[in-house]
């Protein structure tokens, strides 16, 4: 029952997404600008990048970072419709039906992570079109799986913030406060090895770091079993914690008056 209930909410979210597509292309503009502008602005850092063992150009270095940028923001913004649902009564409709509260949260998170992966795959496409090389095109599949898993965890943050916020203003305030630092405090744009120690330390506490490193390894084809295993373990741990936290917080919050 739990699974089919989760699927019901997922189905509804995907239907809504498919029918409100106008935003999809607009949301691609920003990451595309990142690749084109930042990618070329810092092109001359190539020797620095190569000094820590990365063999490609700067654009190739930062492309995984921009894929993650897309994933971070698509998923962390995704929970905002929880607020709309509470405002416009869909939430009450779902809450007075026999489906469980946590399957509402989970269905939303799964939909967000799939949407996030679709957006990120378009960015990957743009990066490839701009000449970023990928050693093995089949790597796209595991890369997308990583994005889906990561986004599932991040959508948990979004659902937690949306469930506890009483207004759009609070939601956007908190989300903007969280989103940018999480992106910046990672090796998305610059290698960890070249960061000051304290910054590198903080970055290592950030799940974004492990996703960026993993995708970068997969794109460049320089895969080391140990670091891959570590990255996957961290991401999986993050996802499990966020899914549990999000369904707990969501279930608790929807029982209070909005």
């Amino acid at each position, binding site marked *: 029952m739990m699974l089919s209930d989760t699927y*019901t909410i997922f189905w509804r979210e995907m239907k809504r997404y498919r*029918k409100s597509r106008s935003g999809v292309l607009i949301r691609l503009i920003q990451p595309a600008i990142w690749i084109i502008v930042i990618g070329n602005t810092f092109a001359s850092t190539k020797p620095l990048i190569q000094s820590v063992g990365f063999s490609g150009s700067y654009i190739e270095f930062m492309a995984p970072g921009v894929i993650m940028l897309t994933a971070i923001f698509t998923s962390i913004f995704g929970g905002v419709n929880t607020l709309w649902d509470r405002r416009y*009564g869909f939430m*009450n*409709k779902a809450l*007075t*039906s026999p489906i469980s509260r946590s399957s509402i949260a989970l269905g939303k998170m799964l939909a967000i992570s799939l949407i996030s992966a679709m957006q990120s795959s378009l960015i990957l496409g743009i990066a490839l079109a701009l000449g970023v090389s990928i050693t093995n095109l089949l790597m796209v599949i595991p890369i997308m799986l990583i994005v889906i898993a990561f986004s599932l965890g991040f959508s948990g943050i979004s659902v937690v913030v949306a469930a506890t916020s009483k207004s759009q203003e609070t939601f956007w305030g908190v989300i903007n406060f969280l989103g940018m630092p999480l992106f910046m405090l990672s090796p998305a744009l610059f290698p960890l090895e070249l960061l000051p120690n304290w910054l590198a330390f903080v970055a290592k506490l950030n799940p974004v770091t492990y996703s960026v490193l993993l995708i970068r390894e997969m794109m460049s084809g320089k895969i080391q079993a140990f670091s891959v295993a570590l990255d996957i373990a961290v991401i999986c741990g993050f996802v499990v914690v966020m899914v549990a936290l999000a369904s707990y917080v969501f279930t608790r919050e929807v029982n209070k008056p*909005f």
Partner: protein
Amino acid sequence: MVAIYNPEIACSLLNAVETQSLSKIYPNRLKAVDEISIKIENGEIFGFLGPNGAGKSTTIMILTTLLKPTSGKAFVAGFDVVTQAKNVRHNIGYVQQDSTVDEYLTGRENLELQAKLNHIPKDIMEKRIGDILGIVELADRQDEPAVTYSGGMRKRLDIAGGLLHRPKVLFLDEPTLGLDIQTRYKIWDYIKKIHDEFGMSIFLTTHYMEEADKLCDNISIIDHGRIKVTGSPKNLKSSLGNEVVLFEIDSEIKLDKLVFEIRKILTVKEISTDGLAVTVFTTSGDQLIPQIFQHASNLGVKIETISLTKPTLDDVFLSYTGRELREDNGKYDRKKERERIRKIRA
């Protein structure tokens, strides 16, 4: 096995809805619902009437398991709303005050979603949806996105959604609020039609007295979180007297004296004044009119107009809730504000 007879459970099974001293106090200490005890029999259409901020929405939210009561008990379809919330949810349909249709989805997709939320088996889903679309006359527009629907069509779609799983108790929160008069009549027809067809109990909140009068077997009037009176519309109206005499006099000077005299007449149930206009509720209007003239001429008061009518539910409502405007009285502002916020949520 020893069967333990529990009168509380036994009587709650007979009733579609039953509350026992139900109270809800919000964290800001506002007592929105105050010791409410109601019984709604199976198959009954029950009207819950009250001014804005009276506690209607809070009560409906407790009965639909959206809010937990502070004290007291509530049973819906025989299940406790707190300890057996899941069973309650299986047995209720809830049509909220504001439309909840997903605008991007078509009418049919909206109902598919509703069917899935309510665990309607796949094999009967299509037929159920087709049937209900026929009843609310939306079959020809079912494949258009709901964003193209008018307010009345959305309401019909909402009502259809609430009925899809054939609930034992259907909650209708202000079903005709903000609709034009033609649509309102149409919605009343649908409500009667579905009630005849499916025989479920209906819990209806409204502040249109006409609506309650047309649809309800019984009503309760609630104000400041308390039940003021319960009964059938007919009995409530006749409790005020069977007839109303309305008259207007020419000057205010002897108004009080005249009212004093009329109040002493045995057939007079209640009397109220508004400027120079006087409203008298009575059990026998044709006898009262000559008496009024008698007293007026004794006092030298000239009666400008006089008429005899039947009391309406409006009169009943006003006699229990008073005439003052809720918005104008600062005392009610906080309550009103909370009500507004709750409505936004609902």
